[in-house]
């Protein structure tokens, strides 16, 4: 499973919550790949996924959160997806 966080550099809300979300995601799913993407470097990809607001989170190349979720919301989304894939 791949989790991609789209952020804009200098976004204070991104930096504050990023670490706790990353830790929660890595702890929830084994062999999860966590990627942090500067939206300006990956603009075409962000548009392709439908990212319109920042920060945003995609799971397995599907936009799931248009704003930063809570740790619980991310955990739930990951579990749901992991259960679906099993």
């Amino acid at each position, binding site marked *: 499973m791949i989790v991609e966080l789209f952020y*804009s550099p*200098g*976004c204070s809300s991104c930096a504050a919550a990023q670490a706790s979300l990353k830790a929660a995601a890595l702890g929830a799913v084994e062999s999860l790949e966590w990627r942090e993407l500067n*939206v*300006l470097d990956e603009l*075409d990809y962000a*548009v392709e996924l439908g*990212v*319109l607001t*920042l920060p945003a989170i995609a799971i397995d190349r599907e936009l799931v959160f248009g704003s930063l979720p809570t740790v619980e919301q991310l955990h739930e989304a990951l579990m749901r997806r992991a259960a679906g894939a099993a």
Partner: protein
Amino acid sequence: MFTIGRLATLAEVSTDALRYYEREGLIAPTGKSEGGYRLYGDDAVPRIRLIKQAQHCGFTLAEIRELLILRRRETACCGDVRQRAIEKKLQLETKIRAMKAMSKALDRLIADCADATHPVEECPILAALEQTDAPTRAASRP
């Protein structure tokens, strides 16, 4: 202090536009003349320039209002404004992508109608648009 007419001249907008901005909460008079006319402060000119330039960059009036509020917020920083600019760019790029898809759909319809001398009731473009899976629908899919 400027009257609405003077402000319109200085900011190069119509008085109607200024009244509209005022109704939308983007500008406000700072006082009234003895005759009861609205008067605007010196800061109104750069504020209107900001509104106009932001509109040219695709910001809606509601979004511009947020930018103006953000400018007054003590805890806000340049990064907050930059983030809104990046989000606007994402929206514009999404629209450009959708419009390119529409343009390609039109290319296909135009190519289908190579013989423009058909009577209109046999027009392949109109026939294609009637189909459930017309090229325009196919193009709008992600």
